[in-house]
């Protein structure tokens, strides 16, 4: 069964007097990989966090599988199938890799925990090597893998990823995107926020371009890759 899994309708978000998002409307269909690209400070991370109500929207609505979740609590939203690997990774620094992964299972309980942890270790073999190591002692790339794996542990219907390539060596970025492609082919719905437009657009079915809190452009990944404005602004102009 396919349908719209997430829909934002004219979403406004304010930080005090500053408007971070202006009438943002977008939709994500089940099974799609959609990315949101834009420069630093465009409001991309704010958009992802506002899906979880942090911060709350000051106007507009968020629908998840047809249900209005605009005013729901973060833990309600998480327990209904949306998972996020957030900006800055936010792994629990004093917990081991395994404990971090266990934190991902809160919404579904521990009935699949052994099987899923095994799957994560296949997806990210580095995590297996470091399973009993505390997260704070790991490299940025390993922490990023852990953050993604933790999000996957809840068997989400919709996976939100905030800049999985940020600050990582090109080879690690490649690895992570290869893994994301693998996930996408299994039918997982992915919403990816990236500054690394090149990788993101190649991976995505569709994409949105955000400028100053507004959606400026939208199209398929291919269309945007060849779009003049996108090339100049986000792909280094060549």
């Amino acid at each position, binding site marked *: 069964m396919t349908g719209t899994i997430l829909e934002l309708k004219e979403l406004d978000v304010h930080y005090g007097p500053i408007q971070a998002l202006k009438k943002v409307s977008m939709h994500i269909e089940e099974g799609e990989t959609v990315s949101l690209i834009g420069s630093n400070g465009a409001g991309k991370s704010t958009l992802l966090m506002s899906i*979880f109500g942090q911060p709350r929207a000051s106007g507009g609505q968020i629908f998840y599988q047809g249900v209005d979740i605009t005013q729901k*609590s*973060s*833990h309600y939203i*998480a327990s209904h199938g949306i998972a996020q690997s*957030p900006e*800055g990774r936010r792994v*629990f*620094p004093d917990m081991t890799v395994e404990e971090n992964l266990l934190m991902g299972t809160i*919404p579904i309980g521990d009935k699949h925990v052994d099987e899923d942890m095994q799957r994560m270790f296949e997806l990210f073999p580095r995590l297996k090597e470091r399973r009993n190591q505390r997260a704070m002692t790991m490299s940025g790339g390993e922490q990023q893998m852990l953050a993604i794996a933790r999000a996957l542990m809840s068997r989400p219907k919709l996976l939100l990823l905030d800049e999985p390539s940020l600050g990582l060596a090109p080879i690690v970025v490649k690895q992570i995107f290869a893994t994301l492609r693998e996930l996408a082919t299994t039918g997982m719905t992915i919403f990816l926020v990236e500054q690394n437009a090149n990788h993101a657009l190649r991976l995505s079915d569709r994409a949105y371009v955000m400028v100053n809190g507004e959606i400026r452009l939208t199209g398929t990944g291919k269309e945007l890759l060849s779009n003049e404005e996108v090339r100049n602004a986000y792909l280094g102009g060549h």
Partner: protein
Amino acid sequence: MDGIFLQQLLNGLTLGSVYGLIAIGYTMVYGIIGMINFAHGEVYMISAYLAAISLALLAYFGVESFPLLMLGTLVFTVIVTGVYGWVIERVAYKPLRNSTRLAPLISAIGISLILQNYVQIAQGSRQQGVPTLLSGSWRVDIGTGFVQLTYTKVFILIAAFAGMGLLTYIIKYTKLGRMCRATQQDRKMASILGINTDRVISYVFVIGAAMAALAGVLITMNYGTFDFYAGFIIGIKAFTAAVLGGIGSLPGAMLGGIILGISESLFAGLVNSDYKDVFSFSLLVLILIFRPQGLLGRPLVAKV
């Protein structure tokens, strides 16, 4: 070794284990919401009254065996004190969750005064007492003297360490413990992973109150007397222990309690017992000056 030294060491260990139990409440609450719960000493005081009420009730119903009395009193006191902890958090702190850091502190002092006055009105301002439940002791002769080990003290040591052990296990190995640690390390992320962080914070208050209740039962057993003001000084002592160990650190609170108890007892026995409180609080001042992060705490770094 000197008999007095060894005796005071044992007394200090007993006292310190109880400080440790109360310090747990300070350190866990600080760890999770970054505030010092100055009403925590009063929670301990309430538990002493609850223990006495429970003992009286059990005696009224004809319970005489020590294990049954103890079990009944512990269960009753821990549960009712836990409810107090839960209500205090809901009424006094939760509504202030997103206000300035000073607001819940003032609210805590308010709750502390309310509880003291409430108990004073309900129970009277005179000192209350419970009879000795467990009498008898072992006497161990050593080189230059002897050490007296009362059954009560041994019981306190065992119960306090069992309480700390149980809590350490819960925090380290159970889902509840992981949820507490996750909420402490990154509350926003915890909520994004589906944890109801408000509920976890409530649990932490209940756990802290339950540990204070265990301490209340044990100290009441040992000293036999208490009044509505009993929470103040022991609350500040336990707070000192939490700071000594490193506020926010669970093993730190236990270690800090034991070190404070032992050093206070040694000072009282070997130097001057009138000035033991001065000694403890001087220790607090020295820690704050020279090692503000405590023994097991980490230096404060700004959270991103």
